[in-house]
């Protein structure tokens, strides 16, 4: 388990004077520039993170739940604190007209989620599902579950509807990008196309997320003479870039298997706040990728590279206002 000191105190740095007031501005209580102080006060903060790259049965939520529970059991035996499943892990990806019948609510009285909520007493979980709101709009969603409770739901805000993708035809667009607090610190979740756009990870960063949990059902494409598919190279490149630019942990869980001719490539990754790769799951195979995250790395990296401290959010806001008010 994580030994909890205060991530607030140790890991988040203050925003610059006059920046966006919504940025967290903690007072590093009594910090002294003494090595002895650090040795004495800053306890080890470790998070055992696991990413499940699973195959799914298209539209068969019960069968997929059974697989989730198997992986949860396995992850638990490996002393995992947090287990992340891919996009639409409970349903499969190309749902088309199966969307309505695959939808569930992340509540205790839901026949699928009651099992997952129960399992979240042992370890925190991120699962992918179709969320149906009270007015029957359907969203591609990720739920963060912990201690038997729903902590946060993210609705995918970018639905690719071009090329081989047709999500906008079947799903409603999410309209929030919010970080949230967990027992491991502040976390943000995004789903696939969300992080193909630079703004959602940027917003999560400003909203306090130090750990970004990305999930995908990414169809492989772009076979050439390179070692990896173009789609895999692109995703790994931007994940590494976000970790580097936002001096944050970035984890990505992608599914495997096939749906008709589409092939999902797996290759889960975890990058640390220096942009270094901590874990890389295999391509095209089911499995769990594990890494022990040393959350103190956030502090060390940001002490060296204060990009968060120096981020000029007011400037961004002013320029955005100007750009968006044109014409």
């Amino acid at each position, binding site marked *: 388990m994580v030994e909890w000191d205060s991530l607030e105190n140790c890991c988040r740095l203050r925003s610059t004077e006059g920046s966006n007031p919504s940025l967290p501005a903690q007072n590093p209580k009594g910090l002294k520039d003494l090595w002895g102080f650090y040795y004495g006060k800053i306890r080890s903060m470790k998070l055992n993170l696991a990413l499940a790259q699973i195959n799914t049965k*298209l539209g068969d939520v019960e069968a997929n739940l059974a697989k989730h529970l198997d992986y949860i059991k396995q992850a638990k035996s490996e002393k995992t604190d947090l287990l992340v499943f891919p996009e639409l892990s409970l349903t499969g990806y190309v749902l088309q*007209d199966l969307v309505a019948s695959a939808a569930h609510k992340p509540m205790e009285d839901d026949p699928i989620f009651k099992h997952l909520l129960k399992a979240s007493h042992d370890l925190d979980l991120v699962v992918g599902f179709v969320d149906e709101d009270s007015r029957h709009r359907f969203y591609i969603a990720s739920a963060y579950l912990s201690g038997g409770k729903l902590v946060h739901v993210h609705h995918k805000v970018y639905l690719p509807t071009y090329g081989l993708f047709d999500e906008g035809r079947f799903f409603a667009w999410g309209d929030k990008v919010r970080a949230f607090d967990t027992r491991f610190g502040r976390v943000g979740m995004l789903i696939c196309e969300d992080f193909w756009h630079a703004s959602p990870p940027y917003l999560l960063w400003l909203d306090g997320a130090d750990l970004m949990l990305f999930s995908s059902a990414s169809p*492989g494409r772009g076979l050439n003479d390179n070692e990896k598919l173009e789609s895999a190279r692109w995703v790994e490149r931007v994940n590494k870039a976000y970790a580097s630019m936002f001096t944050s942990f970035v984890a990505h869980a992608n599914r495997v298997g*096939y749906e008709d001719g589409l092939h999902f490539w797996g290759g889960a990754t975890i990058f640390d706040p220096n942009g270094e790769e901590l874990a890389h799951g295999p391509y095209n195979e089911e499995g769990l990728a594990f890494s022990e995250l040393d959350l103190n790395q956030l502090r060390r990296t940001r002490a060296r590279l204060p990009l968060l401290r120096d981020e000029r959010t007011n400037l961004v806001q002013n320029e955005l206002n100007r750009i968006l008010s044109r014409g």
Partner: protein
Amino acid sequence: MVDLNLSINTELAREILTGFVKSEVTRVGMSRAIVGLSGGLDSALSCALAVEALGAENVLAVRMPYKASSKDSLVHAQLLIDQLGIPNKTIEITDMVEPLFKLDPKISDMRKGNIMARERMIILFDQSEVFKGLVIGTSNKTEILLGYSTIYGDSASAMNPIGDLYKTQVRQLSRAMNIPEPIIDKAPSADLWEDQTDEKELGFTYEEVDKLLYLLVDQRYSPQEAVEAGFDEAFVKTVTTRIRRNQFKRMQPPIAKVSNRTVGYDFLYLRDWGT
């Protein structure tokens, strides 16, 4: 001419394509496949991929010669059968198609070719029931785009592992998978009549047309941009016309919509629905 590299990572291709065959066969509760082995390269590669995916004993190779078929075709198919050690059958189609040919003394080679391709389809889907295996497709991306096939004939299958590989990529992957040299080296042919070759009939080589198709289709070049990239204008026109006119071979026939929910328009499920 722009410098184009169509070469592929054959290890990765092999992994993805064998995974595809295995997934599509096993998810419907089956374990076997069947391939019509012509003696040519496309069917040899599809067969080798199926064997790697499912195991030699689970892939049936069916040879279906006509009396005018090249003798080399049978020999070359045998080379692959021996190399892979797979169950096989030879069913000659001459006695099945000749009565139909005789009904019209003026029947053209093209009609004969189409009849033979469809006869082979009938046999494969019948043997599919006998062997309890799914029919593996053997059409490559070049011929699918050019429409160089018989609709409901050689284009018919239960799944196609090589349909997104250009002919030159089929050659590259075939080399990596040790397909016998004589099959790789010979001129591609539908073998519907004597001395027929694909390139003679099409009027250009696969090497040339694959590069043009790669620009037009994969890289989304306009025909004009392809000409500016160094391709002959008449060649570009021939190829773009072929692509457009053969769209019908790449689709299910359109259904006239009258109801609120119609197969193909707004009744949308993948074939892998529920699996």
